[in-house]
């Protein structure tokens, strides 16, 4: 999928979900994990990823840890307690949206259809 606009609205949820499954991750790792999970179908642009990470950090949903790797520093992101609470609500919000979208795109689908 090449349309990044479709990903934009769900980027924060994707990040939170990935961090729920992995204790801590850094920017490059997140892009690679998304690529791997979607067999390269979804590519998160770095220009959107890093501002989203910083925003989540400012909202108190993510905490950061700096680690020295070789001759550089690496910033790891992990979920805060608030972030852990938010994952469930953000996930159900996104799932509900996808369900409704599916109903619009395929009206023959019965209500209660789950993806």
């Amino acid at each position, binding site marked *: 999928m090449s349309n990044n606009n479709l990903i934009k609205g769900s980027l924060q949820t994707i990040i939170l979900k990935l961090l729920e499954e992995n204790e801590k991750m*850094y920017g*490059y790792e997140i892009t690679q994990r998304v690529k791997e999970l979607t067999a390269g179908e979804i590519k998160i642009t*770095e*220009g959107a990823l*890093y501002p989203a990470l*910083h*925003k989540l950090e400012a*909202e108190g949903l993510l905490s950061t840890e700096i680690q020295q790797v070789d001759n*550089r520093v690496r910033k790891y992101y992990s979920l805060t307690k608030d972030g852990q609470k938010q994952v469930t609500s953000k996930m159900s919000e996104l799932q509900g949206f996808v369900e409704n979208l599916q109903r619009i795109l395929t009206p023959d689908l019965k209500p209660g259809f789950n993806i």
Partner: protein
Amino acid sequence: MRQLSEQEFALIHARLKSLNIRYIEVYEEIFDHYCTTLENVPALDSQTTIAKLNETFACSVVKNMDKELEKSVSKQVWIAQLEFLKFWKHGVKGILIGLVGFFALAISILLIPASELILVFLVLIFCTTGGIYFMKRDAMNFSFQHKSVSVSSIAVIKRVGLLNSLMCWIWIMPIVLSGGNILSNNFFAIGMAVATILSIIYSISLIAVASRLPKSTLL
């Protein structure tokens, strides 16, 4: 995973420096992204990978990253300031220090003539401001060459700058407009006292936030 050559490091640094990245934090994050990406491709593909990364981290993208980071950190600083102002969370010691400061200021207002109070207030404001500038001196650049600085330091310095400008307007404009006569007015002295107290509380909260923020320096 392979080790990058000195030449590759130099290429990355040259590229990042040409982007005039404003904040160290953005510089370091992009630098790590470049390095990790290159470590995972064969040395033969290095040039094409760097070219692709240069497109990914185009000037507009980096500027946006700088802007977004500044917004996020500014929000964090504000939240930390508000948290600091909840004096009841500082325990007995914090409350006592606050009370001593408040009474010292109240006594000086009562004892010092209104015309001389402005000097006392200005000294207090300059002391707290000077303290913040000293603590966050890493954010200041007096050379013509571009230097990436810590975003948190800039967020604090900007707030001090705003406070100083505001205080100058509050003090100087009425004095200029009244030809100095307003200095003998008691209402003006009370107004000055209130503005100074607020300014000092704001500055102290900034000093507290500034002392807790990590100092970033480029490796």
